[in-house]
């Protein structure tokens, strides 16, 4: 993996998560700037998927291909599902839901990099 890019995605997702929790604490509903931030994160994750596929096509192999693909693809699911769940009932809690979804991203990106660096599970 391109380590710098992974760190960028993880830090960005953590910042958006913090932003969500602050907004939730301020009793705010999910608003457009926050949703745009989530869309940008999702875009970064798509770029990460493309990078991952290009590296695989180039012959590099992670510690476990199945685990690697699971994280690569699984990380794309979290934000759209989280956003849909948050928007189905708009409240300060649904703003926090966006934060929870964002928090899952750095964890998955970290694991993705561990697996790419040779971890087998």
């Amino acid at each position, binding site marked *: 993996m391109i380590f710098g890019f992974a760190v960028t995605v993880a830090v960005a997702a953590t910042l958006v998560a913090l932003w969500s929790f602050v907004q939730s604490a301020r009793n705010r509903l999910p608003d457009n700037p926050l949703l745009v931030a989530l869309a940008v994160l999702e875009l970064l994750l798509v770029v990460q998927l493309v990078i991952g596929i290009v590296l695989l096509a180039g012959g590099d192999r992670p510690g*476990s291909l*199945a*685990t690697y693909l*699971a*994280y690569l693809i*699984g990380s794309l*699911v*979290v934000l759209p*599902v*989280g956003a849909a*769940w*948050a928007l189905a*009932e708009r*409240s300060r*809690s*649904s703003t*926090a*839901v966006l934060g*929870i*979804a964002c928090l*899952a991203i750095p964890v998955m990106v970290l694991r993705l990099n561990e697996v790419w660096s040779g971890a087998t*599970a």
Partner: protein
Amino acid sequence: MEQQRRTASGPGRVLVAVYAIFALAATSRAGVQIGTKFHEAPLAYLLSAFAAVVYIVATVALARRGDGWWRVALVACSIELLGVLTIGTLSLVDAAAFRHPTVWSVYGEGYLFIPLVLPVIGLYWLRKSAPAKIAA
């Protein structure tokens, strides 16, 4: 009459979101384990799959309304708590038998102990979102 229980409203939405993430994590992990190396540790990987099913059922049940789903959620969260306590203890007592990690090994150590806290919060929330005592 069917009571409209609202486990998925307010703070419950956050709880369902956390459960959904664990359902995804546990299902993916169990899927990879069973799909690629089931023969290495069938028992541990079946436990992984069991944990995944419990998380999926809990997520769906908490996200839905109605008496029936409330009870399903209660059962799922109870099994989850029992599971993490049992597997957590066994994995400490007999580490050799639990070399292959499950979500519940060492009380969910690999997942920041969230698997230990989650069912407690789940059960607390179910208690709070239970219908008025007279309706019970």
